[in-house]
Protein backbone atom coordinates (compact mmCIF):
# COMPACT_ATOMS: atom_id res chain seq x y z
CA UNK A 1 0.00 0.00 0.00
CA UNK A 2 2.84 2.39 0.76
CA UNK A 3 4.64 1.21 -2.33
CA UNK A 4 1.43 1.71 -4.25
CA UNK A 5 1.09 5.30 -3.06
CA UNK A 6 4.73 6.03 -3.91
CA UNK A 7 4.19 4.48 -7.33
CA UNK A 8 1.13 6.64 -7.95
CA UNK A 9 3.02 9.69 -6.75
CA UNK A 10 5.78 9.06 -9.27
CA UNK A 11 3.20 8.79 -12.03
CA UNK A 12 1.43 11.92 -10.89
CA UNK A 13 4.76 13.73 -10.89
CA UNK A 14 5.20 12.75 -14.55
CA UNK A 15 8.07 10.36 -13.93
CA UNK A 16 8.54 7.39 -16.25
CA UNK A 17 8.30 3.90 -14.82
CA UNK A 18 11.12 1.68 -16.05
CA UNK A 19 11.15 -2.13 -16.32
CA UNK A 20 13.36 -2.69 -13.27
CA UNK A 21 11.17 -0.42 -11.08
CA UNK A 22 8.60 -1.88 -8.76
CA UNK A 23 5.06 -1.78 -10.19
CA UNK A 24 1.69 -3.16 -9.14
CA UNK A 25 0.64 -6.43 -10.76
CA UNK A 26 -2.45 -4.75 -12.24
CA UNK A 27 -0.30 -2.12 -13.92
CA UNK A 28 1.95 -4.79 -15.36
CA UNK A 29 -0.96 -6.92 -16.55
CA UNK A 30 -2.85 -4.04 -18.05
CA UNK A 31 0.23 -2.89 -19.89
CA UNK A 32 1.01 -6.35 -21.19
CA UNK A 33 -2.52 -6.60 -22.50
CA UNK A 34 -2.46 -3.16 -24.05
CA UNK A 35 1.02 -3.29 -25.57
CA UNK A 36 0.46 -6.87 -26.70
CA UNK A 37 -2.79 -5.99 -28.42
CA UNK A 38 -1.13 -3.04 -30.02
CA UNK A 39 1.73 -5.22 -31.26
CA UNK A 40 -0.68 -7.83 -32.58
CA UNK A 41 -2.59 -5.10 -34.39
CA UNK A 42 0.54 -4.09 -36.23
CA UNK A 43 1.18 -7.70 -37.22
CA UNK A 44 -2.35 -8.55 -38.31
CA UNK A 45 -2.55 -5.07 -39.81
CA UNK A 46 -0.02 -6.17 -42.42
CA UNK A 47 -2.62 -8.42 -44.00
CA UNK A 48 -5.30 -6.06 -45.35
CA UNK A 49 -2.70 -3.87 -47.00
CA UNK A 50 -0.52 -6.80 -47.98
CA UNK A 51 -3.56 -7.96 -49.94
CA UNK A 52 -2.88 -5.22 -52.51
CA UNK A 53 0.91 -5.29 -52.76
CA UNK A 54 0.78 -7.71 -55.67
CA UNK A 55 -1.81 -5.53 -57.39
CA UNK A 56 -0.28 -2.10 -56.80
CA UNK A 57 -0.78 0.00 -59.92
CA UNK A 58 2.74 1.35 -60.37
CA UNK A 59 6.23 0.42 -59.26
CA UNK A 60 6.39 3.48 -57.05
CA UNK A 61 3.06 2.70 -55.37
CA UNK A 62 4.17 -0.84 -54.84
CA UNK A 63 7.39 0.32 -53.19
CA UNK A 64 5.56 2.80 -50.96
CA UNK A 65 3.01 0.23 -49.87
CA UNK A 66 5.61 -2.42 -49.25
CA UNK A 67 7.68 -0.01 -47.19
CA UNK A 68 4.61 0.88 -45.18
CA UNK A 69 3.72 -2.71 -44.42
CA UNK A 70 7.35 -3.29 -43.54
CA UNK A 71 7.14 -0.40 -41.08
CA UNK A 72 4.16 -2.08 -39.47
CA UNK A 73 6.19 -5.22 -38.95
CA UNK A 74 8.86 -3.00 -37.44
CA UNK A 75 6.33 -1.40 -35.09
CA UNK A 76 5.26 -4.86 -34.06
CA UNK A 77 8.85 -5.61 -33.27
CA UNK A 78 9.39 -2.50 -31.06
CA UNK A 79 6.17 -3.18 -29.23
CA UNK A 80 6.95 -6.84 -28.57
CA UNK A 81 10.29 -5.65 -27.22
CA UNK A 82 8.53 -3.16 -24.96
CA UNK A 83 6.20 -5.91 -23.75
CA UNK A 84 9.14 -8.24 -23.15
CA UNK A 85 10.56 -5.79 -20.62
CA UNK A 86 7.46 -6.64 -18.57
CA UNK A 87 8.42 -10.29 -18.43
CA UNK A 88 6.45 -11.90 -21.22
CA UNK A 89 8.14 -13.34 -24.31
CA UNK A 90 7.27 -12.62 -27.90
CA UNK A 91 6.49 -16.27 -28.49
CA UNK A 92 4.07 -16.34 -25.53
CA UNK A 93 2.31 -13.27 -26.85
CA UNK A 94 2.20 -14.75 -30.34
CA UNK A 95 0.62 -17.93 -29.08
CA UNK A 96 -2.03 -15.93 -27.25
CA UNK A 97 -2.80 -14.12 -30.51
CA UNK A 98 -2.94 -17.31 -32.51
CA UNK A 99 -5.26 -19.18 -30.19
CA UNK A 100 -7.53 -16.19 -29.72
CA UNK A 101 -6.75 -15.38 -26.08
CA UNK A 102 -5.45 -11.96 -27.06
CA UNK A 103 -7.14 -9.55 -29.44
CA UNK A 104 -6.01 -7.10 -32.09
CA UNK A 105 -7.73 -3.99 -33.39
CA UNK A 106 -11.15 -4.77 -34.82
CA UNK A 107 -10.48 -2.62 -37.89
CA UNK A 108 -8.23 -5.25 -39.43
CA UNK A 109 -11.15 -7.63 -39.69
CA UNK A 110 -12.55 -5.55 -42.53
CA UNK A 111 -11.60 -6.43 -46.10
CA UNK A 112 -9.65 -4.29 -48.55
CA UNK A 113 -11.54 -4.44 -51.80
CA UNK A 114 -10.13 -1.80 -54.10
CA UNK A 115 -6.96 0.22 -54.46
CA UNK A 116 -8.79 3.15 -52.90
CA UNK A 117 -8.86 1.12 -49.70
CA UNK A 118 -5.09 1.58 -49.53
CA UNK A 119 -5.84 5.28 -49.39
CA UNK A 120 -8.67 4.92 -46.91
CA UNK A 121 -6.64 2.72 -44.60
CA UNK A 122 -3.80 5.22 -44.58
CA UNK A 123 -6.00 8.24 -44.20
CA UNK A 124 -8.68 6.96 -41.81
CA UNK A 125 -7.19 3.97 -40.04
CA UNK A 126 -3.73 5.38 -39.55
CA UNK A 127 -5.37 8.70 -38.80
CA UNK A 128 -7.43 7.18 -36.02
CA UNK A 129 -4.44 5.21 -34.80
CA UNK A 130 -2.35 8.37 -34.52
CA UNK A 131 -5.15 10.07 -32.63
CA UNK A 132 -4.98 7.22 -30.14
CA UNK A 133 -1.23 7.05 -30.06
CA UNK A 134 -0.04 10.63 -29.87
CA UNK A 135 -1.11 10.99 -26.23
CA UNK A 136 0.52 7.65 -25.45
CA UNK A 137 3.91 9.21 -26.16
CA UNK A 138 3.37 10.62 -22.66
CA UNK A 139 2.32 7.33 -21.14
CA UNK A 140 3.88 6.44 -17.78
CA UNK A 141 5.75 3.32 -18.83
CA UNK A 142 9.11 4.35 -20.31
CA UNK A 143 9.69 1.68 -22.99
CA UNK A 144 6.11 2.04 -24.21
CA UNK A 145 6.31 5.83 -24.40
CA UNK A 146 9.58 5.65 -26.30
CA UNK A 147 8.20 3.08 -28.75
CA UNK A 148 5.19 5.32 -29.32
CA UNK A 149 7.38 8.30 -30.16
CA UNK A 150 9.10 6.35 -32.88
CA UNK A 151 5.88 4.84 -34.14
CA UNK A 152 3.94 8.11 -34.26
CA UNK A 153 6.56 9.67 -36.45
CA UNK A 154 6.19 6.92 -39.04
CA UNK A 155 2.42 6.71 -38.74
CA UNK A 156 1.89 10.33 -39.60
CA UNK A 157 4.04 9.79 -42.67
CA UNK A 158 1.80 6.84 -43.58
CA UNK A 159 -1.29 8.90 -43.06
CA UNK A 160 -0.06 11.52 -45.47
CA UNK A 161 0.70 8.81 -48.03
CA UNK A 162 -2.81 7.45 -47.62
CA UNK A 163 -4.32 10.87 -48.06
CA UNK A 164 -2.19 11.31 -51.15
CA UNK A 165 -3.64 8.11 -52.64
CA UNK A 166 -7.15 9.34 -51.86
CA UNK A 167 -6.36 12.64 -53.49
CA UNK A 168 -5.13 10.99 -56.68
CA UNK A 169 -8.27 8.86 -56.75
CA UNK A 170 -10.69 11.65 -55.91
CA UNK A 171 -9.17 13.83 -58.63
CA UNK A 172 -8.88 10.94 -61.08
CA UNK A 173 -11.26 9.29 -63.51
CA UNK A 174 -14.93 8.88 -62.59
CA UNK A 175 -14.24 5.22 -61.78
CA UNK A 176 -11.43 6.21 -59.46
CA UNK A 177 -13.56 8.80 -57.74
CA UNK A 178 -16.30 6.23 -57.29
CA UNK A 179 -13.77 3.84 -55.78
CA UNK A 180 -12.64 6.52 -53.37
CA UNK A 181 -16.19 7.25 -52.25
CA UNK A 182 -16.89 3.54 -51.91
CA UNK A 183 -13.83 3.13 -49.70
CA UNK A 184 -14.93 6.00 -47.47
CA UNK A 185 -18.44 4.50 -47.26
CA UNK A 186 -17.02 1.22 -45.98
CA UNK A 187 -14.27 2.50 -43.69
CA UNK A 188 -15.93 5.48 -42.00
CA UNK A 189 -17.80 3.68 -39.24
CA UNK A 190 -15.17 0.99 -38.65
CA UNK A 191 -12.67 3.84 -38.20
CA UNK A 192 -14.94 5.49 -35.62
CA UNK A 193 -15.10 2.17 -33.79
CA UNK A 194 -11.33 2.16 -33.39
CA UNK A 195 -11.64 4.47 -30.37
CA UNK A 196 -13.71 1.89 -28.56
CA UNK A 197 -17.21 2.15 -27.14
CA UNK A 198 -18.38 5.25 -25.39
CA UNK A 199 -16.54 5.71 -22.09
CA UNK A 200 -19.66 5.09 -20.11
CA UNK A 201 -19.60 1.49 -21.48
CA UNK A 202 -15.86 1.04 -21.31
CA UNK A 203 -14.28 -1.11 -18.63
CA UNK A 204 -10.80 -0.46 -17.20
CA UNK A 205 -10.94 3.21 -18.12
CA UNK A 206 -10.65 4.95 -14.77
CA UNK A 207 -7.73 2.93 -13.41
CA UNK A 208 -5.88 3.14 -16.74
CA UNK A 209 -6.25 6.88 -16.75
CA UNK A 210 -4.96 7.17 -13.22
CA UNK A 211 -1.94 5.12 -14.25
CA UNK A 212 -1.48 7.23 -17.36
CA UNK A 213 -1.73 4.18 -19.55
CA UNK A 214 -4.72 5.81 -21.09
CA UNK A 215 -4.63 9.57 -21.44
CA UNK A 216 -7.89 10.64 -23.08
CA UNK A 217 -11.37 9.21 -23.09
CA UNK A 218 -12.61 7.31 -26.13
CA UNK A 219 -15.27 9.90 -26.85
CA UNK A 220 -12.81 12.80 -26.72
CA UNK A 221 -10.55 11.12 -29.22
CA UNK A 222 -13.41 10.13 -31.51
CA UNK A 223 -14.68 13.72 -31.52
CA UNK A 224 -11.22 14.99 -32.33
CA UNK A 225 -10.91 12.51 -35.16
CA UNK A 226 -14.23 13.51 -36.69
CA UNK A 227 -13.42 17.18 -36.40
CA UNK A 228 -10.13 16.64 -38.16
CA UNK A 229 -11.36 14.25 -40.83
CA UNK A 230 -14.58 15.84 -42.04
CA UNK A 231 -12.87 18.88 -43.59
CA UNK A 232 -10.35 16.58 -45.23
CA UNK A 233 -13.18 14.61 -46.82
CA UNK A 234 -14.72 17.84 -48.02
CA UNK A 235 -11.43 18.90 -49.52
CA UNK A 236 -11.36 15.61 -51.40
CA UNK A 237 -14.89 16.17 -52.62
CA UNK A 238 -16.09 13.02 -50.90
CA UNK A 239 -19.21 12.56 -48.80
CA UNK A 240 -19.00 11.17 -45.29
CA UNK A 241 -21.71 8.49 -45.14
CA UNK A 242 -23.55 10.10 -42.22
CA UNK A 243 -26.67 12.10 -42.99
CA UNK A 244 -26.79 13.45 -39.45
CA UNK A 245 -23.31 14.93 -39.65
CA UNK A 246 -23.50 18.63 -38.81
CA UNK A 247 -21.27 21.35 -37.41
CA UNK A 248 -22.26 22.29 -33.88
CA UNK A 249 -21.16 25.81 -33.03
CA UNK A 250 -21.90 25.43 -29.33
CA UNK A 251 -19.51 22.59 -28.78
CA UNK A 252 -17.13 23.72 -31.53
CA UNK A 253 -17.23 20.34 -33.16
CA UNK A 254 -19.33 18.10 -35.33
CA UNK A 255 -22.38 16.19 -34.25
CA UNK A 256 -22.20 12.77 -35.83
CA UNK A 257 -23.86 9.37 -35.77
CA UNK A 258 -22.53 6.62 -33.56
CA UNK A 259 -21.25 3.53 -35.32
CA UNK A 260 -23.28 0.35 -34.99
CA UNK A 261 -21.96 -0.96 -31.69
CA UNK A 262 -23.66 -4.31 -32.17
CA UNK A 263 -21.48 -4.78 -35.21
CA UNK A 264 -18.45 -3.77 -33.15
CA UNK A 265 -19.15 -6.37 -30.49
CA UNK A 266 -19.76 -9.03 -33.14
CA UNK A 267 -16.38 -8.25 -34.67
CA UNK A 268 -14.76 -8.49 -31.24
CA UNK A 269 -16.52 -11.81 -30.73
CA UNK A 270 -14.92 -13.12 -33.92
CA UNK A 271 -17.74 -12.44 -36.35
CA UNK A 272 -16.18 -9.67 -38.40
CA UNK A 273 -16.00 -10.15 -42.14
CA UNK A 274 -12.37 -11.33 -42.01
CA UNK A 275 -11.67 -12.56 -38.48
CA UNK A 276 -11.43 -16.18 -39.50
CA UNK A 277 -9.18 -15.45 -42.46
CA UNK A 278 -6.86 -13.14 -40.58
CA UNK A 279 -6.25 -15.60 -37.78
CA UNK A 280 -5.98 -18.45 -40.26
CA UNK A 281 -3.36 -16.52 -42.23
CA UNK A 282 -1.29 -15.82 -39.11
CA UNK A 283 -1.63 -19.39 -37.89
CA UNK A 284 -0.59 -20.72 -41.28
CA UNK A 285 2.46 -18.46 -41.36
CA UNK A 286 3.42 -19.63 -37.89
CA UNK A 287 2.80 -23.33 -38.45
CA UNK A 288 4.44 -23.45 -41.84
CA UNK A 289 7.37 -21.51 -40.43
CA UNK A 290 8.01 -23.99 -37.63
CA UNK A 291 10.55 -25.99 -39.58
CA UNK A 292 12.40 -22.79 -40.48
CA UNK A 293 12.64 -21.62 -36.89
CA UNK A 294 13.66 -25.11 -35.77
CA UNK A 295 16.21 -25.40 -38.56
CA UNK A 296 17.85 -22.09 -37.78
CA UNK A 297 17.95 -22.85 -34.06
CA UNK A 298 19.49 -26.24 -34.70
CA UNK A 299 22.11 -24.69 -36.92
CA UNK A 300 22.96 -22.02 -34.37
CA UNK A 301 23.39 -24.73 -31.73
CA UNK A 302 25.65 -26.77 -34.02
CA UNK A 303 27.75 -23.74 -34.80
CA UNK A 304 28.14 -22.89 -31.13
CA UNK A 305 29.06 -26.44 -30.35
CA UNK A 306 31.67 -26.51 -33.11
CA UNK A 307 33.12 -23.26 -31.88
CA UNK A 308 33.38 -24.56 -28.34
CA UNK A 309 34.94 -27.79 -29.62
CA UNK A 310 37.48 -25.80 -31.60
CA UNK A 311 38.57 -23.71 -28.66
Amino acid sequence: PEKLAAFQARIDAGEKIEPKDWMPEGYRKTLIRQIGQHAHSEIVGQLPEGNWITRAPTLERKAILLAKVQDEAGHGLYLYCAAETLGVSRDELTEMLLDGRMKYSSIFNYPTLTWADMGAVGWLVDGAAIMNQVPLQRTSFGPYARAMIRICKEESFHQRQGYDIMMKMARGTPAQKAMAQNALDRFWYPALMMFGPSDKDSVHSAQSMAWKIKINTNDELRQKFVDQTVPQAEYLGLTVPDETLKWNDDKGGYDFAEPDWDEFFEVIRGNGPCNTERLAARNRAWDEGQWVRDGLLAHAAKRKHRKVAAE
Partner: protein
Amino acid sequence: MGQADPDPLFAFLCRMGDNTLVLGHRVSEWCGHAPVLEEDIALANTALDLIGQTQMWLGHAGAVEGKGRSADDLAMLRDVWDFRNLLLVEQPNGDFGQTMMRQFLFDAWHLQMLRALTGSSEPQVAAIAAKSVKEVQYHLERSGEMVIGLGDGTAESHGRMQAALDLLWPYVGEMFQPDPVDRAMAAAGIAPDPSGLRAGFDAHVDAVLAEATLSIPEGGFAQTGGKTGFQHSEHLGHMLTQMQWLQRAYPGARW
Protein backbone atom coordinates in the same frame (compact mmCIF):
# COMPACT_ATOMS: atom_id res chain seq x y z
CA MET B 1 7.09 -11.50 -80.23
CA GLY B 2 9.61 -13.89 -78.89
CA GLN B 3 12.73 -14.61 -80.87
CA ALA B 4 13.66 -11.58 -82.87
CA ASP B 5 14.93 -8.82 -80.62
CA PRO B 6 15.86 -6.09 -83.07
CA ASP B 7 17.57 -3.85 -80.53
CA PRO B 8 19.93 -5.90 -78.38
CA LEU B 9 20.54 -3.11 -75.87
CA PHE B 10 16.83 -2.71 -75.25
CA ALA B 11 16.52 -6.48 -74.92
CA PHE B 12 19.43 -6.62 -72.50
CA LEU B 13 18.00 -3.85 -70.33
CA CYS B 14 14.65 -5.62 -70.28
CA ARG B 15 16.39 -8.80 -69.17
CA MET B 16 17.98 -7.01 -66.24
CA GLY B 17 14.80 -5.15 -65.34
CA ASP B 18 12.45 -8.06 -65.82
CA ASN B 19 14.58 -10.23 -63.56
CA THR B 20 14.34 -7.74 -60.74
CA LEU B 21 10.68 -6.96 -61.48
CA VAL B 22 9.54 -10.56 -61.44
CA LEU B 23 11.68 -11.65 -58.51
CA GLY B 24 10.71 -8.52 -56.58
CA HIS B 25 7.08 -9.39 -57.15
CA ARG B 26 7.55 -12.97 -56.03
CA VAL B 27 9.34 -11.88 -52.87
CA SER B 28 6.64 -9.31 -52.13
CA GLU B 29 4.06 -12.11 -52.16
CA TRP B 30 5.47 -13.18 -48.78
CA CYS B 31 4.44 -9.94 -47.15
CA GLY B 32 2.77 -10.75 -43.83
CA HIS B 33 3.26 -14.50 -44.16
CA ALA B 34 6.92 -15.11 -43.29
CA PRO B 35 7.99 -17.60 -40.62
CA VAL B 36 9.43 -14.93 -38.30
CA LEU B 37 8.82 -11.22 -38.02
CA GLU B 38 12.44 -10.42 -38.81
CA GLU B 39 12.09 -12.35 -42.05
CA ASP B 40 8.99 -10.40 -43.03
CA ILE B 41 11.08 -7.28 -42.69
CA ALA B 42 14.08 -8.72 -44.48
CA LEU B 43 12.01 -10.03 -47.39
CA ALA B 44 10.34 -6.64 -47.77
CA ASN B 45 13.80 -5.06 -47.88
CA THR B 46 14.92 -7.37 -50.65
CA ALA B 47 11.74 -6.74 -52.61
CA LEU B 48 12.16 -2.98 -52.19
CA ASP B 49 15.71 -3.09 -53.49
CA LEU B 50 14.60 -5.13 -56.47
CA ILE B 51 11.72 -2.80 -57.28
CA GLY B 52 14.09 0.16 -57.11
CA GLN B 53 16.49 -1.56 -59.48
CA THR B 54 13.59 -2.34 -61.79
CA GLN B 55 12.71 1.32 -61.98
CA MET B 56 16.26 2.10 -63.08
CA TRP B 57 16.65 -0.73 -65.61
CA LEU B 58 13.25 -0.45 -67.21
CA GLY B 59 13.35 3.32 -67.08
CA HIS B 60 16.58 3.22 -69.05
CA ALA B 61 15.15 0.55 -71.38
CA GLY B 62 12.26 2.86 -72.20
CA ALA B 63 14.65 5.73 -72.85
CA VAL B 64 16.79 3.57 -75.13
CA GLU B 65 13.74 2.35 -77.00
CA GLY B 66 12.69 5.93 -77.60
CA LYS B 67 8.98 5.27 -77.94
CA GLY B 68 8.02 7.10 -74.79
CA ARG B 69 7.36 4.02 -72.71
CA SER B 70 8.03 4.46 -69.00
CA ALA B 71 9.26 1.80 -66.59
CA ASP B 72 5.64 1.38 -65.46
CA ASP B 73 4.45 0.95 -69.03
CA LEU B 74 6.98 -1.78 -69.59
CA ALA B 75 6.16 -3.47 -66.30
CA MET B 76 2.41 -3.22 -66.52
CA LEU B 77 1.50 -3.35 -70.18
CA ARG B 78 3.54 -6.11 -71.78
CA ASP B 79 2.19 -9.65 -72.00
CA VAL B 80 4.21 -12.81 -71.26
CA TRP B 81 6.03 -13.16 -74.56
CA ASP B 82 7.61 -9.74 -74.19
CA PHE B 83 9.14 -10.56 -70.82
CA ARG B 84 12.85 -11.34 -70.84
CA ASN B 85 13.46 -12.59 -67.31
CA LEU B 86 15.18 -15.84 -66.44
CA LEU B 87 12.86 -18.77 -65.85
CA LEU B 88 14.34 -19.09 -62.35
CA VAL B 89 12.84 -15.89 -61.02
CA GLU B 90 9.28 -16.60 -62.15
CA GLN B 91 9.16 -19.95 -60.36
CA PRO B 92 6.61 -19.93 -57.52
CA ASN B 93 7.67 -19.23 -53.97
CA GLY B 94 7.00 -22.73 -52.68
CA ASP B 95 7.99 -22.97 -49.04
CA PHE B 96 10.35 -20.52 -47.38
CA GLY B 97 13.31 -22.76 -48.20
CA GLN B 98 12.48 -22.79 -51.88
CA THR B 99 12.18 -19.01 -51.85
CA MET B 100 15.57 -18.69 -50.19
CA MET B 101 17.22 -21.16 -52.55
CA ARG B 102 15.84 -19.30 -55.57
CA GLN B 103 17.09 -16.06 -54.07
CA PHE B 104 20.52 -17.47 -53.36
CA LEU B 105 21.01 -18.87 -56.87
CA PHE B 106 19.83 -15.64 -58.42
CA ASP B 107 21.87 -13.42 -56.09
CA ALA B 108 25.03 -15.40 -56.82
CA TRP B 109 24.60 -14.78 -60.56
CA HIS B 110 23.30 -11.25 -60.08
CA LEU B 111 26.33 -10.14 -58.11
CA GLN B 112 28.76 -11.50 -60.71
CA MET B 113 26.78 -9.79 -63.42
CA LEU B 114 26.52 -6.43 -61.68
CA ARG B 115 30.20 -6.40 -60.78
CA ALA B 116 31.03 -6.89 -64.43
CA LEU B 117 28.52 -4.24 -65.46
CA THR B 118 30.11 -1.59 -63.25
CA GLY B 119 32.77 -1.51 -65.96
CA SER B 120 30.27 -1.22 -68.80
CA SER B 121 31.08 0.97 -71.78
CA GLU B 122 27.54 2.34 -71.47
CA PRO B 123 27.75 4.92 -68.67
CA GLN B 124 24.13 4.58 -67.62
CA VAL B 125 24.47 0.80 -67.34
CA ALA B 126 27.62 1.21 -65.29
CA ALA B 127 25.86 3.72 -63.04
CA ILE B 128 22.84 1.49 -62.39
CA ALA B 129 25.12 -1.45 -61.70
CA ALA B 130 27.19 0.60 -59.29
CA LYS B 131 24.07 1.62 -57.38
CA SER B 132 22.76 -1.94 -57.25
CA VAL B 133 25.88 -3.89 -56.49
CA LYS B 134 26.03 -3.12 -52.77
CA GLU B 135 22.41 -4.06 -52.26
CA VAL B 136 22.94 -7.32 -54.05
CA GLN B 137 26.13 -8.06 -52.14
CA TYR B 138 23.99 -7.88 -49.03
CA HIS B 139 21.22 -10.01 -50.56
CA LEU B 140 23.75 -12.70 -51.34
CA GLU B 141 25.19 -12.67 -47.84
CA ARG B 142 21.74 -13.05 -46.37
CA SER B 143 20.41 -15.70 -48.72
CA GLY B 144 23.68 -17.63 -48.40
CA GLU B 145 23.40 -17.58 -44.61
CA MET B 146 19.85 -18.83 -44.83
CA VAL B 147 20.80 -21.63 -47.19
CA ILE B 148 23.55 -22.67 -44.80
CA GLY B 149 21.42 -22.30 -41.69
CA LEU B 150 18.56 -24.35 -43.09
CA GLY B 151 20.68 -26.81 -45.07
CA ASP B 152 22.77 -27.57 -42.01
CA GLY B 153 19.82 -27.35 -39.58
CA THR B 154 17.45 -30.19 -38.72
CA ALA B 155 16.86 -33.29 -40.84
CA GLU B 156 13.62 -31.73 -42.04
CA SER B 157 15.12 -28.41 -42.98
CA HIS B 158 17.99 -30.19 -44.72
CA GLY B 159 15.55 -32.32 -46.70
CA ARG B 160 13.50 -29.32 -47.75
CA MET B 161 16.56 -27.38 -48.86
CA GLN B 162 17.89 -30.32 -50.85
CA ALA B 163 14.48 -30.67 -52.53
CA ALA B 164 14.51 -26.96 -53.34
CA LEU B 165 17.98 -27.26 -54.86
CA ASP B 166 16.94 -30.30 -56.91
CA LEU B 167 13.89 -28.44 -58.17
CA LEU B 168 15.64 -25.20 -59.05
CA TRP B 169 19.02 -26.35 -60.31
CA PRO B 170 17.79 -26.94 -63.90
CA TYR B 171 17.10 -23.20 -64.07
CA VAL B 172 20.72 -22.26 -63.35
CA GLY B 173 22.12 -23.05 -66.77
CA GLU B 174 20.05 -20.39 -68.53
CA MET B 175 21.91 -17.64 -66.71
CA PHE B 176 25.16 -18.52 -68.43
CA GLN B 177 24.10 -19.46 -71.95
CA PRO B 178 25.06 -16.70 -74.35
CA ASP B 179 22.77 -15.84 -77.25
CA PRO B 180 22.89 -13.18 -79.99
CA VAL B 181 21.82 -10.44 -77.59
CA ASP B 182 24.60 -11.35 -75.19
CA ARG B 183 27.14 -11.51 -77.98
CA ALA B 184 26.14 -8.09 -79.24
CA MET B 185 26.45 -6.70 -75.71
CA ALA B 186 29.83 -8.31 -75.21
CA ALA B 187 31.09 -7.07 -78.56
CA ALA B 188 30.06 -3.53 -77.65
CA GLY B 189 31.65 -3.81 -74.23
CA ILE B 190 28.30 -3.10 -72.61
CA ALA B 191 27.93 -6.38 -70.78
CA PRO B 192 30.05 -9.47 -70.18
CA ASP B 193 29.60 -12.72 -72.04
CA PRO B 194 27.50 -14.58 -69.44
CA SER B 195 29.47 -17.78 -69.87
CA GLY B 196 32.42 -15.97 -68.32
CA LEU B 197 30.48 -15.51 -65.07
CA ARG B 198 30.09 -19.21 -64.44
CA ALA B 199 33.43 -19.81 -62.75
CA GLY B 200 32.85 -17.11 -60.14
CA PHE B 201 29.31 -18.34 -59.59
CA ASP B 202 30.40 -21.93 -59.17
CA ALA B 203 33.16 -21.07 -56.74
CA HIS B 204 30.81 -19.18 -54.45
CA VAL B 205 27.84 -21.51 -54.78
CA ASP B 206 29.89 -24.66 -54.31
CA ALA B 207 31.39 -23.28 -51.12
CA VAL B 208 28.04 -22.24 -49.65
CA LEU B 209 26.31 -25.48 -50.60
CA ALA B 210 29.17 -27.47 -49.11
CA GLU B 211 28.81 -25.62 -45.83
CA ALA B 212 25.06 -26.18 -46.10
CA THR B 213 25.73 -29.92 -46.56
CA LEU B 214 23.71 -29.86 -49.80
CA SER B 215 24.57 -31.63 -53.05
CA ILE B 216 24.12 -30.29 -56.55
CA PRO B 217 21.97 -32.77 -58.49
CA GLU B 218 23.53 -34.79 -61.30
CA GLY B 219 22.85 -34.11 -64.94
CA GLY B 220 23.57 -30.81 -66.56
CA PHE B 221 20.21 -30.23 -68.25
CA ALA B 222 19.22 -26.57 -68.43
CA GLN B 223 15.71 -25.23 -68.95
CA THR B 224 15.74 -22.25 -71.27
CA GLY B 225 13.36 -19.86 -72.96
CA GLY B 226 12.93 -17.14 -70.35
CA LYS B 227 15.57 -14.61 -71.25
CA THR B 228 14.93 -14.98 -74.98
CA GLY B 229 11.19 -14.83 -74.33
CA PHE B 230 10.63 -17.91 -76.51
CA GLN B 231 8.94 -19.96 -73.85
CA HIS B 232 8.27 -18.88 -70.29
CA SER B 233 6.65 -21.14 -67.72
CA GLU B 234 2.91 -21.09 -67.09
CA HIS B 235 3.56 -19.27 -63.82
CA LEU B 236 4.46 -15.94 -65.38
CA GLY B 237 1.04 -15.41 -66.98
CA HIS B 238 -0.70 -15.99 -63.68
CA MET B 239 1.60 -13.48 -62.00
CA LEU B 240 0.75 -10.88 -64.62
CA THR B 241 -2.98 -11.22 -64.02
CA GLN B 242 -2.33 -9.82 -60.55
CA MET B 243 0.56 -7.50 -61.21
CA GLN B 244 -1.05 -5.76 -64.16
CA TRP B 245 -4.68 -5.88 -63.02
CA LEU B 246 -5.26 -2.21 -62.24
CA GLN B 247 -3.43 -0.86 -65.26
CA ARG B 248 -5.30 -3.26 -67.50
CA ALA B 249 -8.70 -2.63 -65.92
CA TYR B 250 -8.37 1.18 -65.83
CA PRO B 251 -6.24 2.13 -68.80
CA GLY B 252 -4.89 5.63 -68.72
CA ALA B 253 -5.80 6.34 -65.10
CA ARG B 254 -3.16 7.97 -62.90
CA TRP B 255 -2.45 6.56 -59.46
